[in-house]
């Protein structure tokens, strides 16, 4: 029952959405709207589930004082400080909720945002270091990739663009047309079509109960 019921729900929900997409909306009424509202409501509950899960996973190391427990404690404290005031009603205090001037907003602007931006900005340093150590023209394919990357990197910045214009005024447009709009698009289309077919196949596998990993089973 624990397996059959979720599979039946997944099958019927998937079938309903397919039917709504194919059939005339007048014949199925507002079934699509109803189903989508259900989905957003369930989506809200999954956020709650995420919070419960993160607390459960991190609480145990703190209680048992496992190695690095203070990292788990810092994470739990962060979740509490960001989440609790944000869900309390603004009518109680302007510090609650998520609007400008709330605790959530203050922590987000002054802590969360700069930390996330810092993490992302550090990529520039790693990319430069990795490019120096690992980007080698060892084979014909690697050389082609290296040359294309160099051309695109130059083309995307004013100094490189100026350099290309100095060689020929139409060179930047040619790169845009033939590298980005030509070779790149051909490859990207292959990837996009492949991914779409994969997504359709996975959806079908879920609907038919072949794919069960979402229930924690293989």
């Amino acid at each position: 029952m624990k397996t059959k019921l979720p599979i039946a729900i997944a099958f019927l929900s998937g079938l309903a959405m397919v039917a709504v997409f194919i059939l005339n909306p007048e014949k199925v009424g507002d079934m699509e709207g109803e189903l989508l509202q259900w989905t957003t409501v369930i989506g809200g509950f999954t956020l709650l589930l995420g919070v419960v899960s993160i607390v459960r996973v991190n609480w145990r190391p703190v209680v048992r004082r496992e190695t690095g427990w203070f990292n788990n404690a810092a994470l739990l404290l962060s979740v509490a400080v960001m989440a609790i005031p944000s869900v309390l009603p603004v009518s109680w205090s302007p510090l609650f909720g998520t609007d400008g001037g709330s605790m959530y907003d203050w922590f987000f602007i002054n802590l969360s945002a700069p930390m996330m931006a810092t993490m992302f900005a550090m990529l520039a340093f790693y990319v430069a270091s990795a490019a120096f150590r690992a980007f080698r023209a060892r084979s014909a394919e690697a050389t082609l990739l290296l040359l294309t990357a160099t051309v695109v990197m130059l083309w995307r910045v004013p100094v490189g663009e100026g350099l290309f214009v100095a060689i020929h005024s139409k060179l930047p447009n040619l790169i845009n047309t033939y590298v980005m709009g030509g070779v790149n698009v051909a490859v990207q289309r292959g990837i996009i079509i492949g991914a779409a077919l994969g997504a359709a196949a996975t959806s079908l596998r879920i609907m038919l109960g072949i794919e069960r990993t979402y229930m924690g089973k293989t």
Partner: protein
Amino acid sequence: MGFWQRVSQLDRRWIYLAVALAVIFPLLVPMKMKLGITPEARQLYEAIETLPDSSVVMLTFDYYPSTVAETRPMSIAALHQMFRKNLKVITMTTIPLGGPSMADRTMKLMGDLYHKTYGVDYVNLGYKANYTAVLLGMGSSIESIYPSDQYGTPLANLPLMQTVKNYDQISFIFIVADNGIVDNWISIVNAQFSTPMGAGVTAVMAPKFYSYVQAKQMTGLLGGMKGAAEYEMLVNKPAMALIGMDSQSLAHLLIIGFVIAGNVAYFATRKKKESKG
């Protein structure tokens, strides 16, 4: 130890220092280099420019704070154009962490700048979980997905939302994103509801979306900080993206320089090893 061997074993801290200097120096001493505008950016600009006055457009804030250097200038430049043209703007986000805060701050900043009234000239719908259902559901009824706006005001009480029921009343969707949500906007909203749309995305994402522009599923594309800088130039409001292009220029040159030096050192030392062996 030979010169190239020393180069190939260069301490990475020197690389980090060089990158830091390449990024910081142009911010202190702007170089103001000339920038070309790609056809994709111009198409996006023209698509909004040709909309009739008071048309309703949607601007999304589908990005995390980590990419604001690339994405926020796009949102701001787009709002300059939209508010200057007296377009009515509806904003929303599919990002729970920070999306609502960034949309709120940016909209208030730009709304005040152009003396726009909340609820009449622009509305911030905020965030709702499960983006697939949100995008699909807004096709039949925005109110069924967002009964109230970001501040808890019922949509029925907002004058702008009394005329906007679903995508049929939205003339254009300008997506600013740093993640895969753009695919969903195209495959769900453009494909099923034929709403015209364009996107501003991070530089690493941009190559993927050229195919959608060619297929006319997207009317224009901004890629990374360069795309944002192009849009700032198009709306004639030079700001952070244009300033940042100098840093990006030097950083790119530096990385290309490192790649060349790394390869020369690699081949020079390999040749030496082979001749010894």
